[in-house]
């Protein structure tokens, strides 16, 4: 029953997004959309996915869109340039999909083919073969480890792509000017800075908890990486990019991103060296189950580092670009004065 309520709420939000003109409201609604779908996932017993969707879908994507909006303006032009063509295409694909759902197994029916062919082995044997309760993590990290490896590379590609597009070479004399502005803003952000100073350690601690708790409950590399980076992003927003860059400079963070992917790959190479196939953790140590534990722990660690580093890189690039834009505006105002 709960999922029907959630789904209808989602539809309402989707319609609202279509109608809205103010981009700020649209982004906020997307955030809510992400959060609602996360709660829908909880209703559908997909706890890991809910956690990731909440962290990534609701958190980071809204954040990035907000940063982008500060640079590109909030108003959307009214004219819709080709509504009927769009409606036409949408109706056709929608009709085809509806046509497709007619023979689908009913929602939640236990005898659907997907529950009878590949999945039962994961549920029944994963305890003996891999020995960790959270089946999703065991499938994620061991049975289909290469998928996760591919996906870490996807996030690495996105990070490098954003860097390649928005990279702004640092110039020394600018840093002093920005630092002076930050200090003057200290009183302005007094309350929020003190609160964040108290909160950030706990966020980082929570990220580490999620990182290592992946085997037993919902959690794992992605969620930990995102939470870790959200702590750093919070710090950057309040104390300014240049101070954040002093804490984590660009070179180091790129190194960490590359290190994460390499670390992940090396686990696979190690299993190659020991004679097993790529990502075969049984050969990592004498007892196969212990090998699986070790393997999963290591690659979760690799994923966590990469995702954290990449999210920070992406945010630093956006913030760096924004600062560049602000400077050009300030210089323009100064000349026009």
């Amino acid at each position, binding site marked *: 029953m709960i999922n029907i309520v959630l789904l209808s709420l989602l539809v309402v939000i989707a319609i609202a997004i279509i109608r809205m003109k103010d981009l700020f409201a649209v982004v906020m609604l997307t955030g809510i959309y992400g959060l609602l779908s996360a709660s829908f996932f909880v209703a559908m017993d997909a706890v890991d996915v809910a956690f990731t969707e909440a962290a990534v879908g609701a958190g980071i994507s809204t954040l990035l869109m907000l940063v982008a909006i500060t640079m590109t303006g909030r108003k959307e032009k009214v004219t819709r340039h080709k509504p009927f063509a769009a409606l036409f295409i949408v109706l056709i694909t929608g009709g085809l999909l509806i046509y497709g759902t007619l023979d689908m197994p009913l929602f939640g029916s236990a005898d659907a083919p997907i529950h009878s062919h590949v999945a039962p082995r*994961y549920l029944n044997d994963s305890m003996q073969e891999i020995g960790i309760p959270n089946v999703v993590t065991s499938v994620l990290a061991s049975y289909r480890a290469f998928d996760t490896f591919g996906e870490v590379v996807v996030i690495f590609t996105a990070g490098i792509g954003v860097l390649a597009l928005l990279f702004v070479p640092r110039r020394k004399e600018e840093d002093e000017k920005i630092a002076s502005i930050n200090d003057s803003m200290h009183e302005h952000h007094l309350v929020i800075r003190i609160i964040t100073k108290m909160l950030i350690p706990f966020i980082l601690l929570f990220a580490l908890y999620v990182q290592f708790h992946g085997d037993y409950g919902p959690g794992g590399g992605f969620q930990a990486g995102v939470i870790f980076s959200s702590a750093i992003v919070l710090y950057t927003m309040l104390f300014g990019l240049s101070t954040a860059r002093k804490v984590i400079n660009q070179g180091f963070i790129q190194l960490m991103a590359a290190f994460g992917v390499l670390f992940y790959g090396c686990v696979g190479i190690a299993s190659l060296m020991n004679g097993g196939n790529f990502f075969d953790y049984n050969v990592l140590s004498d007892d196969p189950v212990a090998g699986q534990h070790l393997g999963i722990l290591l690659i979760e660690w690799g994923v966590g580092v990469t995702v954290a580093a990449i999210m920070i890189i992406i945010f630093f690039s956006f913030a760096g670009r924004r600062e560049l834009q602000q400077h050009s505006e300030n210089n323009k105002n100064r000349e026009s004065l």
Partner: protein
Amino acid sequence: MLMGLFNNWVVIVLMMSGLYIVIAHGNLIKKLVGLTIFQTSVFIFYISMAKVNGGSAPILSENISLYSNPLPHVLILTAIVVGIATTALGLSLVVRLKESYGTIEEEEIQRQDNQQNQALNKERDK
């Protein structure tokens, strides 16, 4: 029958609204929002496929016997990250477009491009 397939039809409505936004709206940020909605609704479709009535989350524990299917959850974990990667890249492109074209409306960008091409043609015909 209705209850069984209602879930899928709502998901399809969500997908189509996402697709509609991408195609109909000229604003580039709106397009990216549309893409995110379209992808998230596909995730919902996958996860609603994996649910088993009465089953619990796929975390093995003694007293529970019936679990939902873990495989779609793994696929969607990957797909979410793919979604955020595409959005991040799309947003950086939008920022670059704003800097070079000064606008993020599709028609204005198209108009500027056409003007530039016509200028090129005129100068060539001279």
